[in-house]
């Protein structure tokens, strides 16, 4: 195995799939007036996660894949 620094290894280890849901959404002060103000219907918060954070989006995708992977591994172990 190479002893060189591997970015993938560090990135994977630092990705906290279990803990990302506890991240608090950073709320920006909302503008109230003006024609171009974003309406509430445009920024739907489905499960309270901060989807403006790209790491959260990646973590969510990873969570789905991990779940699927666990299912595969569970099936392999039982057979």
């Amino acid at each position, binding site marked *: *195995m190479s002893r060189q*620094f591997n*970015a*993938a290894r560090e990135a994977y280890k630092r990705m906290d799939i279990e803990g990302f849901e506890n991240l608090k959404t950073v709320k920006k002060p909302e503008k109230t007036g003006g024609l171009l103000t974003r309406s509430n219907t445009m920024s739907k918060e489905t499960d309270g996660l901060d989807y403006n954070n790209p790491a959260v*989006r990646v973590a969510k995708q*990873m969570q789905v894949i991990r779940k699927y*992977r666990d299912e595969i591994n569970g099936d392999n172990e039982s057979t």
Partner: protein
Amino acid sequence: MAITNQPSFDAPIPGQSLTAELGARPWQTPSRFSTVDDTIDYYMERMSSEEFMVQLTEVLESGVPVTSIANTIQLSSVMEGIHTVDVGMLVLPMIMEMLMMIGDSAGVKYETGLENPNKPILRDSAMAKAITEYEADLKNKDEVTETEDKEVEENEEPTGLMARRK
């Protein structure tokens, strides 16, 4: 970051980036996908193809770690101008997870590459050497104890009423 004392000869020479017109390289132009979502969709589609899965399974079987494959995929996409380096870094864990999922579904025993690279690897040859040394040690100890026993037996002076006087 691991720092090696050995000189690296595979690095670009100073000024190499100026040998082509600015913007002539794909990574110097605006990337095809600028968001994480678009990039994830691109990788999902690419990795879902059967051709990719077959090739990946072969590579994983040959013992190449998942981290190296993910890094190579990400870096080549950056070089092709598909996404930027920072988006690539963000997407890396997802690529790794996807690669491992393909490996799991194919039933391949793969190397993740997540282990500590500085941890010394126990090789079979080292193990065999240790065993032979241990066996030689045991043999030596047996010989030493046998000779000691003999010496003790020889040095033992007979005691008792019938013992010969000096």
